[in-house]
C-alpha cells in the first residue's frame, strides 16, 4: 500500500494514545495528559485530533473531516488526504456515511448515530486557562471541583453586556463533575454534546486527551435568571432555506449586501439536493 505504518503513527505511540482514550472515557471530561508527537503539520492544525484519529481508525472505517462545518477547506482536505495515504481508508463528505468524523469547531447538523465516533481538534483544552494561567493551580481547582471562578466570569459577562456573551467554547459540566471546554464550537452546538456517538477530544500542542461517552449528561453552565441559550443568526439559510442550522455570514459587496449560509456544507448540499431552495439559491451563488 505505502511505506507508512498503518495510520502513520508507530504502534507504541498508538498504544499510549489508546490508553489515554480509555482513561478519558472512564473519567468523562477529565483531561488526560499524553505524550503528543510531532506530526507532519503545524501545531494548531489539528495535531491532537489527527493523533486520536490515527489511534482510532481501522481499515474498514469511512472518514470525514470538517473545518468549521465545511468539508472543502484546506485543513479538512489535507487531513482527509493524509489518512487516505497513510491508512488507506475510504473518505466521504457525507455525515451519514462516515464512521469516524474529525472536526474543527463544529458538530454536524445531522444527528450522529451509535456506530459513529467524533474526534474534536482542541486548541486550549483547559476551560480555566484564561482565568488562571498556572497549570498547577487549574489542576488543583479541578481536583477540588472549585469552579466558582468560571461562574464569576459568566457573571461579569452579564454585568458588562447584560447577557452571557460567551458565544463559543462555552463551558460545560460533564456528568456532574468536571467542567470541560467543548473546543471552540459555537454555543449553538452545545445541546448536541449529549449524543449517541462517542466523543473524543485531542489537544496536540497542549498534550491532553479527554472524552465524553454516549448518553452522558453535559450541562452548559448558566444561572437560574440567565439560563443558557443556544443562539444562531436569526435568518434562514440563503441557499437551502434551513431555519434550524448554524449559519455563516458572507459579505457580498461594499454596499452592505450579505448572505447567510449553512456552516455545515454537507447539510446544506443534501437539503438543496432534496429540493429545498433559499432566498439567493437561483443566483448562481452555489
Amino acid at each position: 500500500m505505502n511505506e507508512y505504518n498503518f495510520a502513520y503513527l508507530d504502534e507504541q505511540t498508538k498504544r499510549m494514545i489508546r490508553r489515554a482514550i480509555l482513561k478519558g472515557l472512564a473519567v468523562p471530561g477529565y483531561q488526560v495528559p499524553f505524550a503528543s508527537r510531532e506530526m507532519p503539520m503545524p501545531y494548531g492544525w489539528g495535531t491532537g485530533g489527527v493523533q486520536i484519529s490515527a489511534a482510532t481508525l481501522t481499515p474498514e472505517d469511512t472518514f470525514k473531516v470538517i473545518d468549521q462545518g465545511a468539508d472543502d477547506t484546506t485543513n479538512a482536505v489535507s487531513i482527509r488526504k493524509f489518512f487516505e495515504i497513510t491508512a488507506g481508508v475510504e473518505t466521504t463528505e457525507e455525515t451519514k456515511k462516515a464512521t469516524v468524523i474529525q472536526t474543527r469547531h463544529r458538530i454536524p447538523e445531522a444527528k450522529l448515530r451509535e456506530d459513529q465516533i467524533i474526534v474534536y481538534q482542541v486548541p486550549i483544552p483547559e476551560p480555566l486557562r484564561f482565568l488562571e494561567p498556572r497549570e498547577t493551580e487549574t489542576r488543583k481547582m479541578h481536583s477540588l471541583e472549585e469552579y466558582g471562578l468560571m461562574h464569576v466570569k459568566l457573571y461579569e459577562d452579564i454585568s458588562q453586556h447584560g447577557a452571557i456573551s460567551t458565544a463559543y467554547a462555552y463551558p460545560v459540566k460533564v456528568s456532574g463533575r468536571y467542567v470541560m471546554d467543548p473546543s471552540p464550537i459555537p454555543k449553538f452546538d452545545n445541546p448536541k454534546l449529549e449524543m449517541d456517538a462517542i466523543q473524543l477530544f485531542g489537544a496536540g500542542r497542549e498534550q491532553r486527551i479527554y472524552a465524553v461517552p454516549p448518553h452522558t449528561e453535559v450541562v452548559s453552565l448558566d444561572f437560574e435568571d440567565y439560563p443558557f441559550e443556544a443562539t444562531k443568526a436569526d435568518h434562514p439559510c440563503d441557499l437551502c432555506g434551513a431555519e434550524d442550522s448554524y449559519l455563516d455570514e458572507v459579505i457580498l459587496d461594499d454596499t452592505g449586501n450579505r448572505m447567510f449560509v449553512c456552516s455545515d456544507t454537507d447539510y446544506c448540499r443534501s437539503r438543496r439536493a432534496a429540493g429545498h431552495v433559499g432566498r439567493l439559491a437561483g443566483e448562481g451563488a452555489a
Partner: protein
Amino acid sequence: MNAQIQFSGGFQNAPIDAAHAFRVAMTVMARPGEIRSLSGSQPPAPLSVAAGTLLLTLCDPDTTVHLAGATDTDAVRQWLTFHTGAPFVAASDADFAVGTWQALGPLGRYRIGTAEYPDRSATLIVECDVLQQTGAELSGPGIRGTSRLSLPDGAAFRKNAAQYPLGCDFFFTSGDKVAALPRSTQIRAEG
C-alpha cells in the same frame, strides 16, 4: 515446546489487529454493559483469547503488569515478555492486572489515581466463567437509561464507584467476549 508457546499466538498483522481490538475495547469502555467479541491472539492457558488480546493491544515496555493467581505461569510470563516487553510487578504498582476475581482481590491493593491525576490508576482485566447481560443494574455515562451485566461482585464495585473520580477501571473477559465497567458507572444490586 515452551518456545513454541512463547513465540506464537501474537497478532498476525499487528497494526490492523490492534486497531480492531482497540475499537472493541473502546466501544465497551464507552458503553458499560455491552458485550463484544474480541480476538486476534492465541495466548497460553489460562489466559482467555479476549484477555490476551487486550494485553497485546494496550501493554508495552511503558506499562506494568500484575499477573494474579493462576495466570502467573512461566508460559504466560514468557509469552507476554516476548510480545509486549511489559515488566511484571506487584499489584500495588500495576497499570494492568489480569486474573480471576478471587485472585485479583482485594481491590484496595491497586492504584486508584490521585486527586489531580485520576488517570494514574490500574485497569483490571477480570477473567470470568460467563459474561451475560443479566444481574446488576448499571447506570451512568455511556448508558442509555440502564443496562445489566453479570458482575462477579457488587459491594466492591459500588465502593470503587463511590471513590469517583478516583478508582480502578475493569474489563471482564470470558473466552472471546469482553465487557467493561469504568469507575463512572453506578451499580444497583440485582433486583
